């Protein structure tokens, strides 16, 4: 009896482990498959330059999506990240354009993220406005501010060489032959991975998203947590905005358009639940790469970028659909 019981348990345990392993491997397999297919179809795909380009084009979305992962796990949502990037970009751009010190400009840019994050956090935590509505509102407000501030034009950033410690280094420079934005994406994701998995803060993010009431009963300060979480994404988005401005050598008010949806798509493709409580930053990054490779492959094959959009949406539907079906069967 006891032996049979323990055997069943072992079996459940094993299935649980392999089950989650299968889940985890899904994205990796998809990524490898895509690489193999495009590598076969296009001789230019598996070249060092192209790989570097693909990573580079995914890196900013990666930074934003890594931050988005935290918000979504906590049961929230942030649509304002793209606009946040734009406002940060034009402010930093204008300051550099007018010859202000680089350090000061970067700090001013990060302050934009702090303000946007605090407004989001305060509205969600204290005013109890639904995160979707809150950040939809701040998305339009901040985008509007970016246009008003810049009067609809761009600020060119001249003369910063792509070497440390110049501003240009952030977006155009290389570290050990790896483009800086890629390095930054890796650093940001590793930090977030550690935060989510090895700190009390991370633990409480999961608890908050999984069951806010239970978190409250256990003495977790729900509102404070929410404000910190929106603050963090705000700062990360601003940071991405700064890197983008450096990469473009300009602060452009239309920059970062659509980043919010791409980031959310990646987080969801990475297996996070929009209901909160579930998600992994490493899977988000994998999903960002899958989407990036898909886009790059389409370009190499000379397919229209409109078709790319269609494919990206289809992948999202397919992936989440398969996941839903598997979960239903598991129940």
């Amino acid at each position, binding site marked *: 009896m006891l032996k049979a019981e323990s055997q*069943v*348990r*072992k*079996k*459940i*345990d094993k*299935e*649980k482990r392999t089950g989650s392993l299968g889940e985890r491997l899904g994205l990796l397999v998809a990524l490898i498959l895509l690489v193999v297919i495009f590598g076969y179809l296009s001789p230019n795909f598996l070249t060092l330059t192209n790989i570097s380009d693909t990573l580079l084009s995914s890196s900013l979305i990666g930074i934003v999506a890594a931050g988005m992962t935290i918000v979504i796990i906590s049961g929230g949502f942030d649509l304002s990240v793209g606009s946040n990037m734009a406002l940060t970009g034009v402010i930093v751009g204008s300051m550099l354009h007018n010859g202000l010190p680089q350090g000061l400009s970067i700090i001013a840019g990060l302050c934009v993220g702090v303000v946007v994050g605090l407004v989001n956090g305060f509205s969600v935590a204290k005013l109890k406005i639904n995160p979707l509505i809150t950040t939809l509102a701040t998305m339009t407000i901040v985008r509007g501010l970016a246009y008003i501030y810049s009067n609809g034009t761009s600020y060119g950033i001249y003369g910063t060489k792509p070497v440390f410690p110049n501003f240009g280094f952030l977006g155009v420079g290389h570290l050990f032959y790896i483009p800086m934005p890629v390095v930054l994406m890796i650093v940001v994701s590793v930090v977030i991975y550690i935060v989510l998995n*090895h*700190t*009390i*803060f991370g*633990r*409480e993010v*999961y*608890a908050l998203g*999984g*069951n806010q*009431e*239970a*978190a*409250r*009963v*256990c*003495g*977790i*300060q729900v509102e404070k947590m929410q404000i910190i979480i929106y603050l963090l994404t705000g700062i990360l988005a601003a940071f991405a905005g700064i890197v983008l401005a450096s990469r473009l050598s300009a602060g452009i008010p239309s920059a970062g358009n659509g980043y919010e949806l791409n980031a959310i798509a990646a987080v969801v493709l990475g297996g996070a639940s929009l209901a909160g*409580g*579930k998600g992994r930053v490493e899977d988000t990054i994998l999903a960002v790469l899958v989407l990036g490779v898909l886009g790059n492959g389409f370009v190499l094959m000379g397919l229209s970028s409109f078709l790319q959009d269609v494919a990206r949406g289809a992948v999202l539907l397919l992936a989440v659909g398969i996941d839903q079906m598997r979960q239903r069967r*598991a129940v």
Partner: protein
Amino acid sequence: MADQAVLRLEGISKAFPGVQALESVSLDVGKGEILGLVGENGAGKSTLIKMISGMYVPDQGQIYFQGQAVRIESPRRARELGISTVYQELALSPYLSVAENIFMGRLPKRWGGCGINWRQLYSQTRELLAEIEIDLAPRLPVEKLSVAYRQQVEIARALSGNARVIIFDEPTAVLTEEESVVLFRNVRRLAARGVAIIYVSHRLAEVLNLSDRITCLRDGKAVGAMTKTEASYDGIVKLMVGRELDKDLFTRDAAPQRDVVLEAERLSQGTLLKEISFELRRGEVLGLYGLVGSGRTELARLLFGLARKSGGSVKIKGRVANIQTPRTAIKCGMGFLPEERRSQGLVLELDVAKNMSLANHSYLTRWGFLRSGEEKRIVQRGIKELTIKTPGLRQKVANLSGGNQQKVILARWLTRMPKPDILILDEPTRGVDVGAKAEIHRLIRELAGQGMSVLMISSDLPEILSVSDRILVMREGRLAGEISQHDATEEVVVTLATGT
């Protein structure tokens, strides 16, 4: 015989990945008969019910409905056949009216099907409710109803759909004694109308009282079937758990007047709680009984900082404590087991360890990082001390049985550093099987013996009577009385609670 059974199950088996949930179970229920279905949590009752109501399809075996072999592949098909289920978690639309909920999917139409014939809807509802003697206004939004009334709406809905078979899944789990009596009357009335009833409950006394026959499940198998005359409480318990339980009342030392740990003085909260004063002493279990809506849960939530008081004060160990958040309550040395463990107590997505250490984060952190070794040690101790049955500390808490989930919440407070000295337990054994229930009772007494002060809310009278040292009874937001353990009988408590 086979023709008389409205519903008959033969050799039903169902497996889930890694678990044989049901193994060749057969049962039948006839017209106007009440079949009691008992078994511990995880015995397969829910799976069986879901099979009958079309949520799952059996792997093997055959279901016969009025002598015909049927395949119930969807809840819709079950409804068409006339099989209704009154679930533990009620499935009503809160913003719609009583009438709309009852006739949902079958609303009387007009204007060629484009409009709803409201007049007819309300008159039909009124007739139906009158027939089963339920006093409810058809236009009232369900949101405004108490759990007991919502359940009556569910029953009315089942009947309006011409149900031949109605399954009750733990219907009294959410009801008070009084409301249960009304439910039993309704169940009997349904049976008298010829409806076949499958009645699932943990509370054996009521199953014994209501059922014509009883089937007992254990580990997915039907381990016994008996008629009303053959069945006895002890016999069923033995079948369910496969062993006998000790039913001894807990022995207590003649409680000396011990120091007061928590003192509530004229506590009020709007219209819900009115001037409640009581003392909780060290090492005592103070039972708190009251009907639904009497304010017992509100009192617990207020004490723990989950609601704001509008008047009065709380003293903890002689000092006035201004508790406005659970965080301060915890700092004052309190722990809380909420009424709804799934929605208020546990983070179901997370594993046993994470759920257990959820209140212990300030101890488990060093420079913001988690001390995972220490966490593992503490959680393993908790699992051992409370004999929590789990394959491991990384098991998702959603996969544990109700009793073990409840123990995880208890362990959360007992393993906390520093350990709380006041525990507020709101329905600690709701939806928990007989074996785990006894274990939890023993644990509560043990804790009191070690000096823990426990405020235990329960709508389970035998539980209140056997575990508490003193009993407070609430009625309509006020304290209706206090009874010492040896003066307490069911009659005294119920009389105070109902004011009759």
